C-alpha cells in the first residue's frame, strides 16, 4: 500500500493575526509555523496503515522552501519519503492541480489529506484533487478500514455518521477523532534532518490560472465587553440573565 499524505505548513493556532501592509495577507513576522493539525491526523493514519499492511508513506507539500520544515516534522514522525512540489499556485484549484500532477507521477494507492487547512479554512483541496484525478473521495473521516482493493470509512455529517464504502485509489480527508498523532522520536528527528527531500517542479501549463483572488483581508469587528453580573446569588443572577435575554435581547 503506497500512500501520499498532503501536508501544509500553517501558522500555529494560537497566533494573533495581524494584517500585512499589502492588506491582502497576514503579517508573517514572528509567526510560529506548524504542520496543519488535521494533516497530523493524516500522517498518523498513513503510518498506522503502513504498520498493518506494509508499503510506503510519502509526505508531499506544495510551497516555498520554508515548508520543508513541515515535511521534516512528518519524516520525524515516521514517514519514508518527502516531496516538495514547486509551482506558482495561489488558490485551491491551482494547488490541487499541482498536487494532482505530482500524484500522477507518484502513483499511490491512497492519498490522505487534512479535512481543512486552518489558515485559509478552504476545506476543498482534498476533494478537488480527487475530482481532478477522477478518484472517489471520502471527506471528514473519523474511522478508516482498508481491505483488499477498497475500504470502509466513517465520516461526520450533521447529526450523525455516514458509513461509506469506497474502492482504491481514493482520497481520504482526516478529521479530529480519526486517531491520536504520535510525537516524533529523538532518533526520528535526527534521521529526518539528514533525509533528502525530493523536488518536483510542476509545469505552469499543468497548473493553469487561479480562479479566486483575495481582494482584502480584514480583522473582524471587535466585540466589546457586555453586561456582566457579579456578586449576585445564583437565583437572582439567573433570573436577571433570563430577563435580559427575554426583554432586552428578545432571544428567548
Amino acid at each position, binding site marked *: 500500500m503506497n500512500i501520499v499524505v498532503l501536508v501544509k505548513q500553517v501558522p500555529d493556532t*494560537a497566533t*494573533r*493575526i495581524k*494584517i500585512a501592509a499589502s492588506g491582502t495577507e*497576514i503579517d508573517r513576522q514572528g509567526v510560529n509555523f506548524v504542520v496543519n493539525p488535521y494533516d497530523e491526523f493524516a500522517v498518523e493514519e498513513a503510518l498506522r496503515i503502513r504498520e498493518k499492511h506494509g508499503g510506503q508513506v510519502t509526505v508531499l507539500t506544495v510551497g516555498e522552501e520554508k515548508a520543508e520544515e513541515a515535511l521534516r516534522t512528518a519524516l520525524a514522525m515516521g514517514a519514508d519519503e518527502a516531496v516538495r512540489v514547486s509551482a506558482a499556485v495561489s*488558490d*485551491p*484549484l491551482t494547488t490541487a492541480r499541482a498536487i494532482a500532477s505530482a500524484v500522477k507521477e507518484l502513483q499511490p494507492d491512497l492519498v490522505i489529506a487534512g479535512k481543512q487547512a*486552518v*489558515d485559509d*479554512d*478552504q*476545506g*476543498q483541496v482534498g*476533494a478537488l484533487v480527487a*475530482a481532478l484525478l477522477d*478518484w*472517489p*473521495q471520502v*471527506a*471528514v473521516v473519523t474511522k478508516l478500514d482498508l481491505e483488499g482493493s477498497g475500504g470502509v470509512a466513517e465520516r461526520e*455529517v*450533521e*447529526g*450523525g*455518521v*455516514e*458509513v*461509506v*464504502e*469506497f*474502492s482504491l485509489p*481514493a482520497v481520504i480527508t482526516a478529521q*479530529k477523532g480519526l486517531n491520536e498523532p504520535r510525537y516524533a522520536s529523538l532518533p526520528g528527528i535526527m534521521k529526518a534532518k539528514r533525509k533528502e527531500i525530493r523536488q518536483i517542479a510542476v509545469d505552469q501549463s499543468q497548473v*493553469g490560472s487561479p*480562479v*479566486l*483572488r*483575495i*481582494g482584502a483581508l*480584514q*480583522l*473582524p469587528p471587535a*466585540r466589546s*465587553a*457586555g453586561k*456582566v*453580573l*457579579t456578586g449576585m446569588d*445564583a*437565583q437572582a*443572577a*439567573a*433570573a436577571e*440573565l*433570563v430577563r435580559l*435575554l427575554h426583554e432586552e*435581547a428578545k*432571544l*428567548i
Partner: protein
Amino acid sequence: MILAVLEAQDGALKKISHELMTAAAEADAALASGGVAALLIGPGAQEAAKAVSGAAVQEVLVVEGDAFARYSAQAYARAVLAAAQSTSAHAIVFGATSFGRDVAPRVAAALSAGLLTDVTELFAKGGALAARRPVYAGKAIAEVEATGDQCVVAVRPNAFTAKEQDGSAAPVRPLSVEVDPGSVRAKVREIRRESGGRAELSEADIVVSGGRGLKEPGNFALIEQLADALGAAVGATRAVVDAGWRPHHEQVGQTGKTVSPGLYFAVGISGAVQHIAGMSSSRTIVAINRDAEAPIFKMCDYGIVGDALEILPQLTQEVHRIKG
C-alpha cells in the same frame, strides 16, 4: 441563472435550503443573472420540491433514480453539472454543510471554476461575484473574488436569513441524469443518527456549551437540561472532549465545529483562542464563569460571575417559567 442546490431529508426541505434561496437571490442580484432555479436530488426530492415557493425560484429541477438512492459525491456532482448546464447557471450555490462541502469541489473542478466556500456575505465586484468569508478560524475576514465565467459558492449555515415565501409552488421539472454505475467508486452504506433528538450543532439557533468548569462528566446533565429547555444544541470544549467527557462531534472551535447561532452560552469555559475561533460569529454570547478575569468575559454580551453548578439549574428553571 443561479442554481441553488437544496437539501432535503425524509421529503422535507432542510433549514439550510431556505437560507440558500436567500443567498441565491443575492447572487442573482449581484450578477443580474436572470433568476434563480433550484435543484433537489435523490430520494424524496419530488416530495420536497412541492414546498419550494414560486416567489423564490423560477423552477425546481428534480433528479431521482437508482443512481441517487444512496448518496455518492461522484453521482451527485454529475446531477448538479447536468442541472447547471440545463439552466445555463452562472453560479451554483450550495450550503457549506457536510453535503455541500463534499460535492461543491467536484463540481468546481469539473467546471474549472472557483469555489467560494464558507461564505457569510455575497456581493458584486467588477461584474464578478465576490464573498466575505472568515479565515484563520474567524480571526480574520477575507474578501474573495471569483474570476472566470462561472463560480461555485457554499454558504455557511445561519449566515443568510431565510425569508417567508407565500404564494404558489414553483413549477417542478424532472431531469434525467445517466450515471455509469462503474464510475461511482464511493457510496454511502448506512447512516447512523447521533444527535439524540437535539438540534444539530452547526444549524442550531441556540447552543449551550460546557467546559472543564463543569468539573465532571456527570454534571453535563445540567448543560443538557438547559439546552432542552431552550431547544438548543449542546457543545463542548476540546478540553472536555479530549478528557472523554463528551463525544467529539460536540467540539466547538478551531479543530471542532464552527457555529454561528443567534445565542451562544459558554459555561465553565475559559475562552481560549482556539475555542473562540469556533463561536465568535455567534450573534449574542453569554458567559458563565467563576473567574471574573476569564478571557471569555472580554467578548461576551452578557455574563454571570459565579458557580456554574449552582447557576445552571436556576437558569433552566427560569427558562421554563418564562416559556410557561
